[in-house]
């Protein structure tokens, strides 16, 4: 670690750093762009693309908050996302542990069975899914929705977690087993902490899936109080015109907290857990 730090100061790395800075700025730009748009009037957005707002229209945020029901929908979406991450993270990691470490006949078959789920366009299964949900009468049911979201998160979870576990050494957990620890103990005290970087990465992807998913809540939630962010943002796209200012304000209101949370928590979780586990 120490050696790498010194290298940053060589010339080559400085140039690399600058290039990287440029790329990073290009990535941050859309957020700044969104913030600009959210403070402009609708006509202004389309008449001058990159200019600063003529006057700051904070009322767009008030509109977005009220019309998009952002406060309520933000909490709902966080709830759904947290539940999905928990279910898909725990069960997905359990399955990946088996697929990475254990030996049995149909292992590669089961692995492919999970992975193949990534190949399904979500629109393709919407009608069969709503048959099932409709017949069971489980609309507006967060429990079922969590299982549904999780089901669609498992393929990527299994792909990434199995790959990740394949790359971490097995000696430590084997030593633990020889010392007489039970399988649950090994899993929770050794496997999970060691896999944390993988779990975090996959949780980021799964979070984005849930956060931006429009089709599931659209079809399976009819109770307005149970809506999600993506449904709230729809309220600005009309038959004859679109309120882009308010929609951008809504996007900023919902995105910025997530980015802040990402910056604050990701390193904390990673560092905290990694320092606990012994690196080989």
């Amino acid at each position, binding site marked *: 670690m120490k050696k790498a730090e010194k290298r940053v100061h060589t010339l080559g790395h400085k140039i690399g750093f600058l290039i990287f800075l440029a790329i990073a700025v290009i990535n941050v730009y859309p957020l700044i762009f969104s913030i600009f748009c959210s403070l402009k009037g609708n006509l202004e957005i389309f008449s001058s693309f990159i200019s600063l707002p003529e006057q700051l229209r904070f009322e767009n945020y008030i509109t977005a908050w009220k019309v998009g029901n952002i406060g309520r929908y933000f909490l709902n979406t966080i709830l759904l996302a947290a539940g999905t991450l928990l279910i898909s993270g725990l069960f997905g990691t*359990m399955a990946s542990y088996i697929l990475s470490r254990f030996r049995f006949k149909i292992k590669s078959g089961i692995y492919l069975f999970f992975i193949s789920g990534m190949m399904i366009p979500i629109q393709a299964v919407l009608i069969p899914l709503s048959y099932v949900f409709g017949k069971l009468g489980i609309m507006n049911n967060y429990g079922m929705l969590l299982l549904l979201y999780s089901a669609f998160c498992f393929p990527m979870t299994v792909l990434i977690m199995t790959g990740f576990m394949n790359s971490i050494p097995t000696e430590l957990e084997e030593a633990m087993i020889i010392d007489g620890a039970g399988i649950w103990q090994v899993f929770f005290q050794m496997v999970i902490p060691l896999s944390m970087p993988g779990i975090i990465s996959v949780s980021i992807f799964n979070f984005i899936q849930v956060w931006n998913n429009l089709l599931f809540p659209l079809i399976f939630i009819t109770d307005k109080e149970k809506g999600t962010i993506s449904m709230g943002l729809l309220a600005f796209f009309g038959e004859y015109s679109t309120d882009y200012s308010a929609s951008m304000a809504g996007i900023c209101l919902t995105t910025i907290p997530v980015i802040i949370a990402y910056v604050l928590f990701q390193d904390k979780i990673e560092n905290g857990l990694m320092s606990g586990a012994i690196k080989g």
Partner: protein
Amino acid sequence: MEKIRKNKKIICIFLFPAFFIYLCFEVIPVLMTIYFSFHEWPGIQSVPLEFVGLDNFVNLFRNEIFLKSLKNVFLYVIASVILQVPLGFALGLLVHKFTHFKRFFKASFFIPMILSVTAVALLWNFIYFPTDKGILNTLLIHAGLPDLARQWLVDPETSLPALIIVSTWTSVGYYMIICLAGLTAIPDSVIEAGEMDGATGIRKVWYLYIPMLWDSVKMSVIMVITGVLKIFDTVYILTPSGGTDNSTIVPALLMYNESYRYGHYGTGSAIATIIFILSALVSVISLRLMNKRESIEY
């Protein structure tokens, strides 16, 4: 040790929850979609399915637009694999080296992923705007290259590359994150040993990092392939009609139109089935190819 690794009870208990949820909520619906693809159905509950055998598939492969969509999506996949994975890993390796601003850099790649498609579409709409008011065209004109300015999303020659760039931009962060996660799993001692051997620069990346990250590379490639073969959002938002002369039409967009706009549910399901089979084939083939290169055991 061997005994535990073969313990059927543990295997079943650990696999069961994920397997079961996945089976009920994803696999069964997929099987139903495949079943639909052998039928004609207008998407009306009271109308019975009419078995038509392979007709839907045969008609599709006679349909020029569908063939065009396959061609487009293959170009899309190849370009995305070539662009997204190397870029993502290059960025990951670079960020890993940084001690300062690491959080800022990571977060900056998180933004395009989390930002709503609406914002992304609006932004790129302005960048690709067809007149000399467009951001890209303005830049070209100021750079003294006015001949290069064009209607990026309308011109059949540039519309698909334009979309590929947007996809690359939105998803490169995924592969950076996978790369970073892979790097944290490599013990420092291994990297230090490699550095003692005197490997530097590109050689170090190629002979040291890539082999150690090979599992991550493999899964990234699979993610790109499966993700791009079913691509819908980016295409639908930037070129809702599938582009001039179908220059940006992709199977998922056709599937959406057939099922949800034209009421040809059997045809739509058949397209979905083809997307599924293609992804499986391409994934297996590329896994085979990638498995030829052994990852380093450490």
